[in-house]
């Protein structure tokens, strides 16, 4: 291809096009304007104008999680760029591949406290895998190529590219988008595991009597679901997904257990507590899972598969660490694993499952959040894409929306970002236009980003919002109930009339406060071909159980006291 002369802004568009990007989310502003002028000439790139940069970042994240592709978000300098930061932090913690493009003040103005100047590469160091300040237009193709490569390789994450306005205007020679990344000597992901490490893991697995697998997002990111299933079945090992690993193992499989940890199921916690081997595949041992380190899986040896070497020995020491991509590692491992049956261990697991089930309460005609989620699960056949906020409803959704579809459960796990539920649902729906996307929201989280309802309306994204309206910061209230002697402080979040709000945004709104209306509201939402808001009025005194208080162990786990008052066999799933 002969060289062309292109402006920096065009080079960015060329890069997006070459990367196959057809959807980006952003908000314009002074420093990024040259880019916004050029994108008009690239009709293959659909730009979604979110109403807030946080929305752009979360939408890109929801899109990336639902599709497995790199999400792209765009903002101007200063306030626009910093508004992206919480989204970048969310993506960073949960290993979502994102490329963020920000405008910067002109090169001569940098460092002069110019209007809307912020040191964006400085601010975002801790929430990005890497970032760039591009000082020459001719560097844009290489930098964009590297940014996409770093974002999606190894443990994925966000990469930010900051470009001064005059660089976006500068004319540079363009000889085509680079075919490969040639100059990144400091980025050499280990994709294939060391055979000795794999052998070490196999030896422990073959010797174990009571093994359990903890399956994290690494399984989904590397597409290792078939290998995980193979391993579990061959060696008869029950599988506990992490919050971000939901969908990595079929939820209806007899070896599938529910989540463990702070709000995990009691039976999964007991299984981990009795196990003699815990095999972590692609998760980092979050403290919400391990609780008190000294009491975590006290009888177990630990096998730890992770592509990020720095996750090994970070929170929990591994007896057999394996650094590498989950799929490659499991493929190397499988031939070394002996086929086994373990009737005793599996029947013990089943006993625990029966004795300590997850329960669904009811409240005399008032629907509980658990019940609503269970009905959404049943009426969508467990096949919907679920996006959640953060708090009680998130934990109930994780407990009760059991799925066998990889990447269909989308939630901010590592950072726990409230407000994620609205824009991330937009991104997920736009990435998966033919799927039914349900956004399970808290009333408080919903109010943090509800301005994106306008974007959702404009894009005709048929997201079904289920707001679990307890008129409070429910999870905060739960902690104040349990750990602060009911001294309630700053938790009333009574919002607007959500039905009227829906109407104001041009979508139907349905309010439900009787249990007998739950099904019809869900079906009505499903039948409507656009976005819908269903506001479920739920009980405030409903607490998420089981609960292991922060930093404690399964010995301190509290199960739902309500369960003991019920005749056996009722209200249990």
């Amino acid at each position, binding site marked *: 291809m002969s060289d062309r002369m292109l402006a920096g802004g065009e080079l960015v568009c060329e890069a997006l096009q070459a990367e196959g990007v057809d959807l980006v989310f952003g908000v314009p502003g002074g420093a990024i304007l040259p880019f916004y002028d050029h994108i008009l000439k690239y009709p293959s790139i659909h730009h979604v104008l979110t109403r807030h940069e946080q929305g752009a970042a979360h939408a890109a994240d929801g899109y990336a999680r639902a599709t497995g592709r790199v999400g792209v978000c765009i903002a101007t300098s200063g306030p626009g760029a910093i508004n992206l930061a919480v989204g970048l932090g969310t993506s960073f913690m949960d290993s979502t591949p994102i490329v963020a493009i920000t405008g910067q003040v002109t090169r001569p103005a940098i460092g002069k406290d110019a209007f809307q100047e912020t040191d964006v590469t400085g601010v975002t160091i801790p929430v990005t895998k890497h970032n760039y300040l591009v000082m020459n237009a001719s560097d844009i193709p290489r930098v964009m190529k590297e940014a996409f490569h770093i974002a999606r390789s190894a443990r994925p994450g966000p990469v930010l590219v900051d470009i001064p306005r005059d660089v976006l205007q500068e004319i540079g020679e363009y000889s085509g988008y680079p075919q490969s990344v040639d100059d990144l000597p400091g980025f050499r992901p280990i994709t294939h595991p060391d055979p000795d490490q794999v052998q*070490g893991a196999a030896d422990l697995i073959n010797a174990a009597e009571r093994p359990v697998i903890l399956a994290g997002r690494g399984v989904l990111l590397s597409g290792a679901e078939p290998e995980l299933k193979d391993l579990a079945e061959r060696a008869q090992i029950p599988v506990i997904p992490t919050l971000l690993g939901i969908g990595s193992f079929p939820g209806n499989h007899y070896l599938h257990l529910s989540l463990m940890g702070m709000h995990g199921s009691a039976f999964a916690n007991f299984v981990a507590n009795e196990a003699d081997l815990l095999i972590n595949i692609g998760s980092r041992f979050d403290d919400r899972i391990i609780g008190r380190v000294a009491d*975590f899986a006290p009888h177990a040896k630990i096998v730890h598969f992770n592509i990020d070497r720095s996750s090994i020995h970070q929170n929990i020491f*591994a007896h057999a660490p394996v650094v590498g991509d989950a799929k490659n590692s499991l493929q190397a491992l499988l031939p070394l694993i002996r086929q086994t049956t373990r009737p005793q261990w599996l029947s013990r697991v089943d006993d625990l499952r029966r004795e300590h089930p997850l329960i669904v309460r009811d409240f005399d005609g008032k629907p509980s959040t658990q019940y609503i989620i269970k009905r959404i699960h049943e009426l969508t056949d467990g096949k919907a894409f679920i996006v959640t906020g953060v708090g009680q409803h998130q934990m109930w959704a994780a407990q009760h929306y059991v799925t066998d579809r990889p990447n269909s459960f989308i939630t901010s796990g590592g950072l726990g970002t409230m407000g994620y539920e609205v824009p991330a649902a937009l991104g997920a729906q736009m990435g998966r236009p033919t799927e039914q996307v349900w956004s399970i929201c808290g009333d408080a989280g919903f109010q943090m980003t509800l301005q994106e309802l306008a974007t959702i309306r404009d894009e005709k994204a048929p997201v079904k919002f289920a707001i679990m309206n307890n008129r409070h910061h429910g999870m905060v209230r739960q902690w104040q109930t349990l750990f602060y002697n009911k001294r309630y402080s700053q938790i009333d979040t009574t919002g607007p009339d959500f039905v009227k709000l829906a109407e104001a945004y041009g979508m139907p709104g349905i309010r439900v406060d009787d249990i007998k209306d739950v099904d019809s509201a869900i079906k009505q939402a499903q039948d409507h071909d656009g976005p819908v808001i269903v506001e479920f009025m739920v009980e405030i005194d409903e607490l998420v159980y089981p609960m292991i208080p922060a930093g404690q162990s399964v010995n301190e786990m509290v199960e739902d006291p309500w369960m003991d008052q019920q005749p056996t066999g009722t209200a249990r799933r």
Partner: protein
Amino acid sequence: MTMRRVISALVHDRPGVLNRVASMFRRRGFNIASLTVGHSERPEFSRMTIVVDNVPETALYQVTSQLFNVVDVVEVMDITDDDYVARETALIKVRATRETRGQIVEILDLFRGAEVISVSPYSVIIEITGPTEQVESLLALLEPYTILELMRTGLVALTKDDTAPQDGAWRGPTLVGAQSHRN
């Protein structure tokens, strides 16, 4: 139990790299005792010698693996347990009057690589280059004369083996399985 680790790293010579490295150490709670950076054998790269203090045994592996995750860091070696040479330089301004100057010079005679490089009416500036222990023992001997100002470069170190490390090389403490997972 905590320990001091000596780490050698090759990094891109670009704006902001020091910030990235320092930011990683700060947010992970590692304590940098000294960090020295300068040109390396390759024009586009700098070499850093980083001395990290109070590293708990549990974080041993973290220091190098987190550093290696910084994209601008090309190579990381924990050389603490290797055969290596290390030197630092200190400039020490000591109060020295006509009476004490001679005594100070006598002390310097006990050290290799130590000399007076500037003399003023009431003070001298001493330069010493050597291993950290040597610098510290000189400082201890000079203490009674009143040290007015002190500037230490921090450690620079190289391993003695005769192979050059490869791009993308990482060598932390050996990745062994732990005896217990409670860390």
